[in-house]
C-alpha cells in the first residue's frame, strides 16, 4: 500500500512554507518585531528579495494575506495601514508598515529551535496560497493535539470530533463530503453565505465566502434578476429570477457584512432566500485535500516531535491567540 507522506507540514517546526518563513525572518532582520515599531513594508520586501530573490509584488501579497483576519486564523503579521478589504485593494507597500505579530514572533523562534515546534502550518492551512489544506479552528486543533500528546492512542473519531470542520473565518455555512475530507480524500466543500429573512419584503446577506467580493456578488444578483427571458420564455424567466427589486450594501466594515435585498411585492421571501443561496458568489466550492486522514496528520505531527515539550508549545500558542 502506498503511503503518502504528510511532508513539511508535519516535519517542519512551524509547518510554514519557505516564503512565509522568509517573510518572518526578513521582518526580524530589520527589527520589525512584536514589541518594536512597525517598519515600512517596502523595507520588508527588499529584505525578502535579498534573502530568497522573491519579487516584491509576490511577497507583498503574502505579507498581506498573513495579516488578514479573513484569510488565516493565526495572523503572523501585524499590519499598520490599509491592508485591503473584501472589496478594495491594499495600499502600496511604500504607504504601509508591518511587523511580526506575537504569533509570528513565536513561529520564527520555533523555526530557529528556540522554542518547541508549533502546529501553525497545520492550523493555517495553505488555501490562501492556492493549496488544498483549509484552515482549522486554532483552539480546537490545539485541544486535539493536547489530547494526542496525553493519550497517543486516542481513537481517530475522537480526534476528528475535537478538531471539528475547517474554519473558513467568514462565518459561512459549510456543506459537502466532510467524511471524505476527514479521511484525507480530495473533495470539494461548499461554502454558502448566510442569508436571513428580515421580514416579508427584505432578505439580508450577513456573510459571504472568504473569496467573494461583495460588490461582485451584488452585480451577479442584479444580472441573475435581469428580465432577459421574460419576453421570449416567461416561465423560464419566472423560474430563474430572484424577485429582488433592489440591493443595498449596508456593511459597516469588512467584519460586518450586510447586504439588504428588497423584494418585489408578492415574492415569497423564503423561496427567494433559497434561490439567493444558489447564486455564484453567495455560494462557492473549494477543493480541499489533506495528504493523509486529518487525525493521522495530527498524530504524525505529535509523533514526529514527541521528544520535545509540546504541551508548553501548545500552551504558549494558545496564550498568544487568546490575549
Amino acid at each position, binding site marked *: 500500500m502506498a503511503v503518502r507522506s504528510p511532508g513539511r507540514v508535519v516535519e517542519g517546526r512551524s509547518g510554514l512554507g519557505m516564503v512565509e518563513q522568509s517573510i518572518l525572518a526578513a521582518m526580524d532582520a530589520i527589527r520589525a518585531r512584536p514589541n518594536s515599531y512597525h517598519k515600512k513594508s517596502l523595507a520588508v520586501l527588499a529584505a525578502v528579495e535579498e534573502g530568497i530573490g522573491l519579487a516584491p509584488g509576490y511577497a507583498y501579497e503574502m505579507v498581506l494575506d498573513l495579516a488578514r483576519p479573513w484569510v488565516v486564523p493565526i495572523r503572523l503579521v501585524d499590519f499598520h495601514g490599509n491592508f485591503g478589504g473584501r472589496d478594495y485593494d491594499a495600499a502600496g507597500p511604500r504607504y504601509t508598515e508591518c511587523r511580526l505579530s506575537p504569533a509570528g514572533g513565536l513561529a520564527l523562534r520555533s523555526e530557529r529551535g528556540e522554542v518547541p515546534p508549533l502546529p501553525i502550518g497545520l492550523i493555517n492551512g495553505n488555501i490562501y496560497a492556492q493549496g488544498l489544506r483549509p484552515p482549522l479552528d486554532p483552539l480546537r486543533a490545539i485541544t486535539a493535539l493536547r489530547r494526542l500528546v496525553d493519550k497517543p492512542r486516542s481513537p481517530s473519531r475522537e480526534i476528528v470530533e475535537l478538531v471539528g470542520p475547517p474554519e473558513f473565518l467568514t462565518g459561512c455555512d459549510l456543506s459537502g463530503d466532510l467524511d471524505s475530507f476527514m479521511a484525507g480524500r480530495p473533495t470539494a466543500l461548499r461554502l454558502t453565505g448566510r442569508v436571513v429573512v428580515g421580514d416579508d419584503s427584505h432578505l439580508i446577506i450577513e456573510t459571504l465566502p472568504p473569496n467573494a467580493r461583495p460588490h461582485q456578488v451584488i452585480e451577479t444578483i442584479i444580472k441573475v434578476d435581469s428580465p432577459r427571458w421574460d419576453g421570449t420564455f416567461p416561465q423560464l424567466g419566472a423560474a*430563474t429570477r430572484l424577485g429582488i427589486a433592489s440591493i443595498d450594501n449596508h456593511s459597516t466594515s469588512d467584519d460586518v457584512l450586510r447586504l439588504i435585498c428588497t423584494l418585489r411585492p408578492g415574492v415569497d421571501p423564503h423561496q427567494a432566500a433559497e434561490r439567493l443561496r444558489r447564486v*455564484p458568489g453567495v455560494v462557492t466550492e473549494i477543493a480541499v485535500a489533506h495528504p493523509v486522514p486529518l487525525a493521522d496528520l495530527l498524530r504524525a505531527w505529535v509523533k514526529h516531535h514527541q521528544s520535545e515539550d509540546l504541551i508548553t508549545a501548545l500552551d504558549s500558542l494558545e496564550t498568544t491567540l487568546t490575549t
Partner: protein
Amino acid sequence: MVVGSCALFLAGDMAVLPVKDADIVPDPSPQNLDCLWEALTDMAVTAWRVPPRGRLGTLDVVPVATVYGKVDCLLERGRADFDDLLSRASLAPVADAEVAVASEADCRRLRSLYKGR
C-alpha cells in the same frame, strides 16, 4: 445542444445528481457562435473572462462561470460532430423553452471521452 450530466438529467437520469455544470456542444456556424458569444457575455459573472468573439471558432473548450452556474462550451466537439450529434438528439422542455439534448448513448460516449468514465 446540451450533453453531459445535465443532458442525462434532462433525460430522466437522477443518478447523475448533483449536476455541477452544463456542458454544451454549440452549432459551429459563425452566426451561431456570434449568438453564443453574446449570450455568454451577457450571463458571465465577469464578462471580460469570455474569450473574444472571433476566437470561439478556433478554441477547443471554453469554460464560463455564468450567473446561473458553470457552462463548459465544447467547441471542438461542435466543429467535429455537431450535425451527427443533432441527428440523434431530442428536444427537452425546460420551463417554457425547448432545449436540444444529445442522446443518452452520445452523452455517455462523450463522458468517457472527456472524463474517462
